[in-house]
Each structure stands twice: as C-alpha cells, then as structure tokens.
C-alpha cells in the first residue's frame, strides 16, 4: 500500500497516449510535408484569424448569456426547499445525458421552415430566417452548455453560510446590500468555474455551427476538422494555437479564482 508501483502501467499509458500524441501535434506544426523545420504552417493559419476571432466572440457571447440565465436560476434554487432543489437539479442535468448531436438536431427541427418556433415567429408577423445565422449558433451553444454554468454556481451558493446573511441583516443591510456584499462576492468562485466550463468547449466545438449556422459561421473546430483531411501540418498549427489560447484562458481564470479565494 506504500508502493508507487501500481501507477506504472498508467504512467506508460500516459506517455504513449497523452504525451506522444501532443508532441506529434507540435512536431507536425513546426515541420513541412517532408519533415523539415518551418514556420510556414503558422503563416498559413493566419488566413483563419477571422475564424478564430469569430469563434472566441461566439464563445464569449454564449458564456455571457449562459451566465445571465444561470445566475438568477442558481440563486432561486439555493433558496428553495431541498426537495424542490433536487428536482430542479435533476431536470437541468437530464438533457445533458442526451447526445449533443441530437440536441442540436432538435433545434434544427424547431427553427427550420415551418418548424414550431418558426411558425410562432410568423404569427408575430415577423419573417426572418431563424436557421443559418450566428444567432442560431449562439442559441445552440447556450442550450448545450447552460447546465455547465448552473451546476457550479448553484453548488457554491448552497455552501454560503446562512449566518453570514443573517449577520449582514442584523447589521442593517437591506436585501440589495446583502446580495452585493455577501452573496455575490461569495459566489464568484462558482461563476469562474462556470465560465471556464462553458467557454472552453464552446470555443473549440465543431458541428454545432455546421448544423445551425450559415456558410459564413464556421468555427475553428470545423476548420480544424476540415483542414486535417488535406493538410496535417496546417491543421496541427491551428490545433496548437487553439490549445495555447485555451490554456492561457484557463490559467488566467484560475489566477483570478485564487485571488478571489485569498480575499474571501
């Protein structure tokens, strides 16, 4: 029981199936077809800068909307009776068990011509195509990743010591003040992990934009998938860039979280 030996099979596994594959991405990113060192792949991937920017923008927008919807919901849940709370938590998690392609396909059914939402919009006298634009992509992302925002915020809010709230009330704080001085600051760690859990998969996802967006709405994940079929080197360069952007984002968010924890 004091031995490190049981981890040896996994250490070998990690070397072969985690470290070497990533090293290969780096290798292909910095070489050309014949294996010579070059930075040409990175130069070529600059062509996709606007796709990168658009993906990050869509991810940012989706994350913000998720936060706007999830925060009040988490707050309401944390104030509810335990039994109600459990039911709502269950209901929020249930759609996550459905494959994401099916969830996106469900929105295609709703938004397509003569789909239910399309018909409802027509009844309101509006005639706009709902499918095939950036708005539909953001909607799909919010639908897909909303639970990842609700769950961490909710679990942090549940842990807030009610005596702190009571103490603030005893000291004369009104509802708004209790919220801004106690509940909100203490819920920040949940917000941070929620942002990370929504932003990372949204920025790097593929397929969602293909189903819900138009031809101009492709995201970086779609580009990577597409390019790898033709050019491993440029594909690797873009993957490496994506990986580094995500890593930097996670490090910044973690730092931010640690500082918050240190203050609290």
């Amino acid at each position, binding site marked *: *029981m004091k031995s490190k030996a049981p*981890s040896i099979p996994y250490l070998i596994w990690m070397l072969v*199936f985690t470290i070497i594959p990533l090293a290969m991405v780096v290798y292909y990113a910095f070489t050309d077809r014949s294996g010579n060192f070059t930075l040409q792949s990175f130069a070529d991937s600059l062509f996709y800068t606007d796709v990168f920017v658009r993906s990050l923008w869509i991810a940012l927008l989706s994350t913000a909307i998720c936060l706007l919807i999830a925060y009040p919901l988490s707050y309401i849940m944390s104030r509810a009776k335990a039994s109600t709370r459990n039911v709502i938590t269950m209901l929020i998690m249930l759609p996550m068990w459905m494959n994401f392609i099916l969830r996106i396909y469900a929105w295609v059914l709703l938004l397509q011509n003569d789909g239910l939402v399309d018909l409802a919009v027509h009844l309101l006298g509006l005639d706009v195509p709902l499918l095939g634009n950036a708005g539909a992509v953001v909607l799909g992302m919010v639908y897909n990743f909303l639970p990842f925002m609700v769950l961490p915020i909710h679990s942090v809010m549940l842990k807030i010591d009610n005596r702190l709230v009571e103490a603030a009330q005893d000291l004369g704080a009104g509802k708004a003040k209790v919220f801004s001085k106690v509940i909100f600051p203490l819920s920040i760690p949940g917000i941070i992990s929620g942002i990370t859990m929504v932003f990372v998969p949204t920025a790097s996802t593929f*397929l969602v934009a293909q189903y819900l967006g138009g031809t101009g709405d492709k995201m970086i994940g779609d580009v990577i998938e597409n390019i790898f079929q033709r050019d491993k080197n440029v594909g690797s360069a873009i*993957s490496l860039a994506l990986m580094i952007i995500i890593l930097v984002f996670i490090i910044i968010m973690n730092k931010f979280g640690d500082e918050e924890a240190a203050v609290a």
Partner: protein
Amino acid sequence: MKNKRKLGSKIYVALVMVFLYLPIAVLILYSFNDGKTSVWKGFTLKWYYELFNNSAIMTSLYNTLIIAVLAALVSTVLGTLAAIGIYNMKKPVRSLVTNVSNIPIINPEIVTGVSFMLLFAFLGTLFNFEMGFATVLIAHISFCTPYVILNVMPKLRQMDYSIYEAALDLGCNPRQAFFKTVMPEIMPGVISGMLMSFTYSLDDFVITYFTRGPKFQTLPIEIYTMLRRRISPTINALSTLLFIITIAILIIVNVWERRAEKERTA
C-alpha cells in the same frame, strides 16, 4: 410582496424548463408523426419499426455498448491502480503526474481527437493497420481514466491509513489487508469513476470521429452520418428511446442510492 417574488421565481424556473425541454418534446412528438416534414399528418409507429429493422443502427448500438463496457472496465482498473500509486508519490512528482493526467480533461476535445489521429495514422503506416475498434477503445480508455483517478483520489485521502496497518498487525498479508480495508473505503469513488467513464464513452462523438477509421461506427457517429444524408424521423424515434432509457436508468440509480442510504442509517 413576498408572494409576488415567489411567483416571479416560479415563472422564471418554468421558462428555463420550457427552454430546456421544448426541443426534446418536439423531437419526441415528431417520432410519432406519419409524415416526413414538420407538418403533423397523424399518429404512427412506423419510424420505430424502421429503427429496429435498421441494421446499421443496431450494429452501431452494439459497438457503442461494447466499447463503453470495455473502456469503463479497463480505465477503472488502470485508474484505481494509478490513483494508489500517485497517492504514494512525493509532492512535486505527484503534482506533475496529476497535471499530465488531467490533460485530456482540460484540452479541447478536438485537439485530443486530432492528436490521436496523428499517432494512429503514424503507427498505422509503420505497422500496417487501419484505425477501427482497437484505436477507438484505446482513445476512450485514455480520456476516461483521468476521471477515475479524480474520483478515487479524494477517497484515498479521506481514508484512515491506520486501519490498513491494523489489518496487517492482526495477521493479514498485504493483499488481504488491501482488499479488506482499503478497497471498501475507496469503493464509492471507484464505482462513480466507472459510471462516469461508461457514460462519457457512450456519449463521445468528437474523439471517436477522429479515431474510428473508415468503417467502424458507433451510435453518435451513425446519428451524425444519418443527419448528413437526410433528415429522417427514424432519428426522432431513436432519440425518444434513448431519452426514455436514460430516465429509467436515472430513476433506478436514484432508488438504489436511497435504499443504500436507508440501510446505512438503519
């Protein structure tokens, strides 16, 4: 005033639920629609009939289950052993190993997917094999094992090490002592790690997509291919069945947990 706020909360929760469940409800409704478009043409079960007679779907369902069961079993053994070994490491090495182990969790799925593809394509030309069942299984084990470790590690930390020593003092050999004291303590973590692996493997699309090669189909891949060809209500029938099975499993697990809880407190 208080009632008004309560009503507001209820409406808000209800709206979010409509947002979450309207698409699923429509998906289910159309699985019974006797027509291919979104216009309602009457009730039918023919899409379910077609579903069960679709051999491609049934084969891919079988493949998905085999992969998920094997991936869950292998990664549970691999991950539990790894967690015990890592638990015994000293601080700097332990942090390093844990960080590397978490790479598949943190890394964008698509990057993990293409990195596997590069490796398997390279090995494939070297040893002359094609991607398929084995490469998908290896990839699934790789991204499931970190979750097993994440689940088992806290249980090891919570465990009182002296019970293991007590077992040794009372005459157990190390193996007996391990299975009689350590194993029961970490069992909840092992089980939840295994369940997590099973569901992640079952649901995976992205990594399978890049490691499956030209022929091997899993259910998510089959759904993707079907949607590429044309939208058929068979997919709705499939979604409905999957959704019902999920609810059934969740209810069973819940009841089982509650019963276990009762037994513990009794």
